[in-house]
């Protein structure tokens, strides 16, 4: 596939604070790429570099083969959907959508035709004469989408476009955006801190933290084969354990050897081991690979979330069966459910649920709390 946008060794800092640090990224034509990470990870800055609103301190930005570092925003063939829509309050819906074409001095008939087409695309037919201030958040977002698409961009940049919408509307818009992207076949670069949004919409997810890319991959890759503790923790819930890779396909943790599907590590290399809470089987204590005591159980609707103490390490397990607090259970893990990762700067920071409580979780991860509240 052809690359429409290439970022090479991009570095940016504001007031001496490093925002992006040696970022390399290629975006393929027609792809839905999501930049995912907590606030302050540099994802919006990356988007603004592509849009032309920030010039990187170091590195190059290419559109196709053309270096565009010094090309101002109005000359770039990309359009942006801003976080707060940024509609023009003095113009009605029609004129907002027509804005880009008016700037380009397109013919009246052509403008009318395109505006009509765009408003139909976002289900806003009949809203032409409405003032944007009379529209709901979801409708304003649709106008913003129509306005950006009316310019016929090669690449559409979306900066947390759904963050201000309520949950139900957000889900609908996710589907709609994905459909628009598919039907128009243009490249979407989407910024979000919502991992669920990223997994459900994207062809490629770019997980970022601390101004660096942590992992690039398909949603399933990112979820099933996280490459470090940060990715494992940020995408879904994870139990992350200290382990030692004894040999290919054999990893040891809690003093016990487990078969796994990973290979290519040094002999006896210390590693991080990830096991997802839904991938753990609960069995009779005597049949388990590990034995633990239930310390907490929370009903989540689809399943229970239980916290199990195994030799001082608190696991999170999702199960459809009820297990009373203080009951002793056995744990079994299939080899393919064990993901082995190289040690990283994030090792030891995440993955133990010993301080787990609903309240603590919210405090430790304000981003997740935001996501839940919206």
């Amino acid at each position, binding site marked *: 596939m052809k690359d429409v946008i290439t970022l090479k060794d991009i570095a940016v800092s504001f007031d001496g604070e490093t925002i992006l640090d040696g970022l390399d990224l290629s975006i393929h034509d027609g792809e839905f790429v999501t930049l995912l990470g907590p606030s302050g990870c540099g994802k919006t800055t990356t988007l603004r570099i592509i*849009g*032309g*609103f920030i010039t990187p301190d170091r590195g190059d930005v290419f559109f196709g083969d053309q270096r565009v570092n010094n090309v*101002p*925003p*109005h*000359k770039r063939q*990309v*359009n*942006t959907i*801003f*976080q*707060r829509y*940024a*509609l*023009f*309050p*003095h*113009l*009605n819906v*029609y*004129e907002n959508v027509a*804005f*880009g074409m*008016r*700037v*380009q001095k397109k013919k009246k008939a052509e403008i009318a035709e395109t505006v009509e087409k765009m408003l139909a695309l976002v289900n806003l037919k009949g809203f032409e*004469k*409405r*003032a944007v201030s009379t529209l709901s958040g979801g409708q304003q977002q649709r106008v913003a989408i129509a*306005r*950006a698409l009316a*310019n016929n961009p090669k690449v559409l940049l979306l900066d947390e476009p759904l963050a201000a919408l309520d949950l139900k509307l957000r889900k609908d818009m996710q589907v709609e955006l994905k459909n628009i992207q598919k039907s128009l076949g243009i490249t979407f670069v989407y910024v979000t801190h919502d991992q669920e949004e990223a997994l459900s919409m994207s062809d490629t997810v770019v997980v970022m933290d601390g101004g660096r890319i942590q992992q690039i991959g398909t949603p399933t890759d990112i979820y099933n084969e996280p490459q470090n503790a940060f990715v494992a923790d940020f995408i879904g819930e994870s139990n992350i354990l200290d382990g030692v890779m004894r040999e290919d396909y054999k990893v040891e943790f809690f003093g016990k050897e487990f078969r796994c599907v990973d290979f290519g590590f040094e002999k006896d290399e210390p590693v991080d081991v990830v096991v997802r809470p839904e991938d753990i089987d609960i069995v009779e204590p005597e049949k388990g690979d590990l034995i633990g005591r239930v310390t907490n159980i929370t009903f989540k609707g689809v399943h229970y979330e239980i916290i199990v103490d195994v030799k001082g390490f608190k696991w999170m397990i999702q199960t459809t069966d009820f297990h009373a607090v203080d009951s002793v259970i056995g744990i079994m893990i299939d080899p393919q459910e064990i993901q082995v990762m190289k040690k990283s700067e994030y090792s030891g920071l995440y993955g133990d649920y010993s301080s787990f409580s609903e309240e603590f979780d919210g405090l430790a991860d304000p981003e997740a709390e935001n996501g839940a509240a919206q």
Partner: protein
Amino acid sequence: MKKKSGMLAAPFGIWMALFTIVPIGIVLWFAFTDANGQFTFDNVREIFAFDPSKGETLWNDSFVSTILYSLWLGFLTTVISLVIAYPLAFSISRATERVQLTMVMLVMLPMWMNFLLRTQAIKSLLSESGLLNQFLGLFGVGSLEILNTDVAIVIGLVYDFLPFMILPLYSVMVKIGKSEIEAAQDLGANVFSVFRRVVLPLSVPGILNGITMVFVPSVSTFVISTLLGGSKRMMIGDVIESMFVGEAPNRGVGSALALVLMVLILICMAVTRLADKSESTEEGGFAL
């Protein structure tokens, strides 16, 4: 609820009645009565009076000419203030919050001083041996006769009323979001296009307020013109003043002049607003 919150405007209502409505009534009364209290149009007619036998014309020798002259100076003052204030207000509105506060303070600073004092200061600055001429002298530019000319009056008016142009402009511009400007750039608008299609239309309310707040007081001002323009020409405010406290007072004509001036200013304001409306309906903008 409505009734109760309406009561909050009562103090202002009483104030308006006592010091605005009643005085306008009195002005109307004086303007349309003679010394005996009989109804008459003589006072209004007097405004347009001139004596052809002495070679006088309507446009040069009647009160009409003074009114037109005042409107002209007011117009010049307003245009110059707008040209100075607009870019300044915009750059203040784009600055950091700290800088904005400081700049707004600096803009208002002169208003803390009595305007008579300020006008006196301008007078000495502009005088033949004043600072301005001394400065120009350094470059070999001969001493300019600015004081006692229209230029001096306009400089004084702009100086006194500029803050009233800057502040309303700033207060609407500060509400124009950075992201709206970025959205316009993103959609292909260059600097001029962003200005013409986003910044200018969004700042129209500020422009209108600024024009009103500068034009009205500069047309009807009186002391500034006497101090800076000398006795050569009077502005309409000076004439009206002389009709009440001068050597040959005639409060009937004075009131008629005040009334005509008021009507003219109202017409000017209405024309400005109409011009704005017709412009904004082009291209279907300003949907309300």
